């Protein structure tokens, strides 16, 4: 993990940032800091979930909230994801702003009926009367030898659920800016946190008010031979791949989608128009993964700009494997470099 040092944040022109003051944080600290700020800012915000209280969350993302805001606003629930999300619908109806945590994204399956059938469509069903302004935080993602269902990247499934916003930050500053936007957003947001990035991804984070709007991709690395499209931890993989590609004389642009719903199709389109070649990198299985949607959007909007088929680098179509196999299962720098090289060499 030594090559992770000094990951720098892209400057985000779209963000609304109070002051230039910033400090270095890792992604976990940025999330914790933002939860503190948002709870202090709006006393309707309530954090609930398994072990979020005295324990501060199993990764310490909610550390200190219990001491600062008390047992009424930081609530350890019984171990039942369905009712964590289901009760959040009711809490929102009562006027509160719930920020439930699902301890690991894989356990949102236990709550899919509430997520997809209820949370996502309360506004639609009730024409706004009982909208569910809920931010669901959940860590996911591989590479750190977690037990089963702790790592699975489910965004492909989540993006097919109308009514949900799906937010997947790749930098510490974005983790802050997007989480603050999510909590203030009146709609349900899935805020997915890459486990591998919690401590590994570091960067300067504005200390004051900092909001990053949804639906605006960020260019992390400039380049014009090929664009590497990614989100969440895969942005970091692509950033490193771009470094290696540059040694091979290939200038790779890295585009961080940041939010999948809403999707910044304009940024994708213009990157493809400018580079003519694209690689989409996802941590999820290939079939049904969101990378297919990115390819389909490119097909719709920039097909004639393509000088080669868009390459997808994905995990494979097997269930997330156990620890000894996961490094080979996941997209990594080598796989991305190879896909980009082939794409550039293809006619």
């Amino acid at each position, binding site marked *: 993990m030594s090559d992770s040092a000094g990951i720098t944040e892209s400057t985000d022109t779209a963000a609304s940032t109070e002051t230039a003051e910033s400090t270095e944080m890792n992604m976990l600290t940025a999330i914790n800091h933002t939860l503190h700020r948002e709870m202090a800012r709006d006393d309707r915000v309530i954090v609930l979930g398994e072990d979020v209280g005295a324990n501060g969350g199993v990764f310490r993302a909610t550390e200190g909230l219990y001491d600062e805001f008390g047992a009424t606003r930081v609530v350890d629930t019984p171990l039942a994801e369905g009712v964590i999300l*289901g*009760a959040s619908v009711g809490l929102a109806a009562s006027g509160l702003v719930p920020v439930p945590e699902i301890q690991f994204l894989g356990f949102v399956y236990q709550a899919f009926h509430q997520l997809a059938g209820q949370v996502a469509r309360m506004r639609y069903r*009730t*024409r706004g*009367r009982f909208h569910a302004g809920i931010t669901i935080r959940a860590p996911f993602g591989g590479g750190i030898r977690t037990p089963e269902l702790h790592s699975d990247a489910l965004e492909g499934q989540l993006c097919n659920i109308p009514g949900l916003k799906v937010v997947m930050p790749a930098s510490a500053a974005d983790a802050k800016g997007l989480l603050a936007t999510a909590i203030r957003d009146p709609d349900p947001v899935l805020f997915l946190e890459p486990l591998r990035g919690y401590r590994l991804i570091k960067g300067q984070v504005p200390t004051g008010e900092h909001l990053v709007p949804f639906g605006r991709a960020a260019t992390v690395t400039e380049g014009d031979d090929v664009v590497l499209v990614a989100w969440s931890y895969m942005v970091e993989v692509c950033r490193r791949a771009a470094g290696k590609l540059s040694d091979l004389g290939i200038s790779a642009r890295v585009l961080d989608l940041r939010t999948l719903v809403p999707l910044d199709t304009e940024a994708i389109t213009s990157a493809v128009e400018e580079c003519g070649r694209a690689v989409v990198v996802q941590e999820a299985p290939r079939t049904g993964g969101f990378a297919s949607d990115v390819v389909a959007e490119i097909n719709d909007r920039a097909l004639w700009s393509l000088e080669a088929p868009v390459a997808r680098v994905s995990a494979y179509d097997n269930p997330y494997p156990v620890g000894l196999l996961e490094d080979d299962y996941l997209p990594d720098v080598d796989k991305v470099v190879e896909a980009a090289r082939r794409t550039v060499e293809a006619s």
Partner: protein
Amino acid sequence: MTAPAASDRLDDDDLTEMLTEMIGARFFSNRAFNLQRQGRAGTNAPIDGNEGVVVGAARALDPATDWVLPQYREPPGLLRFGEEVLRRYFLYIVGHPAGSHMPEPLRVWPPQISLATQIPHAVGQAWGMHVQQQEGVVLVFFGDGASSEGDFYEAGNLAGVLGVPVIFMCVNNGWAISTPVSRQTAAGSFADKARAFGMPGVRVDGTDVMAVYEATAAARRRAADGEGPTMIEAVTYRLGPHTTADDPTRYVPPDELEAALARDPVVRFREELRSRGLWDDDREERAAAWARDLADRTVAEVEATPVAPTDMFDHVFAEPTPALVEQRESLVEHLARVGRSDV
């Protein structure tokens, strides 16, 4: 915070209003059934047999402070919360998107199709009201069938832990479509299930509207006094088909149904009020006329309520995403192309 003393005892007006509501509930539900048969409405679930449960429970609540979460069979019995409930009911069954829009200040949630999912919502809402010290309690209806879903148990358990002001109203009408209660659970009763949550469970005759009222009023008092949740099992019998799409003769034993019809909650309560001298043919006539007029007026209004195809894009999010804006445009263009630009 204590429950208004007034509602502890029912006066004669309450009683006649309740019977009127029960007569109305059955009438409105029957109208919905007929509309479906005429191709003017979608699948719907008749209330027959549940009138006492719904009207009795509603009478024990305060429409100004308390909330109700129905399953799907109860709405025509909830007019105590406002006649607007009826308009929404008919909008709902004709397939109009406004049917699930319960406007302010109605403290009634829309029907829930995904069984038992409303129970966690009720607990969450009661929890939120509790921590914000809002007055009022929350009552949630669900069926004997719905009680088998994990959501019921997860919500009951959470309500017990938090001690929030919620009333679980389990409407045991003997059936979940074709599945009898004996195949639904081996528990001694649904009220028994409250033991699993550390909350009191009471069983009440659901064909007796007054008994339902009493049990609900007691549960409301407990909730409002900060003593936490209660589960009520109201035992009644489904007197009609599950829905317009169901054929109960395939599975309901005729003798069982006959026995249940002899305990029809509407008939029972009518006889009770007649015997108390509170009801007569004239009253009956007036109640029927009221229900008919209201149904006629409401259905006419509802059937004249327009809806544009592009309505489907509204309220997905507070602000539409670019994808939705594009898709809306493509539908508008499509409609123009096929000559429906008027809509």
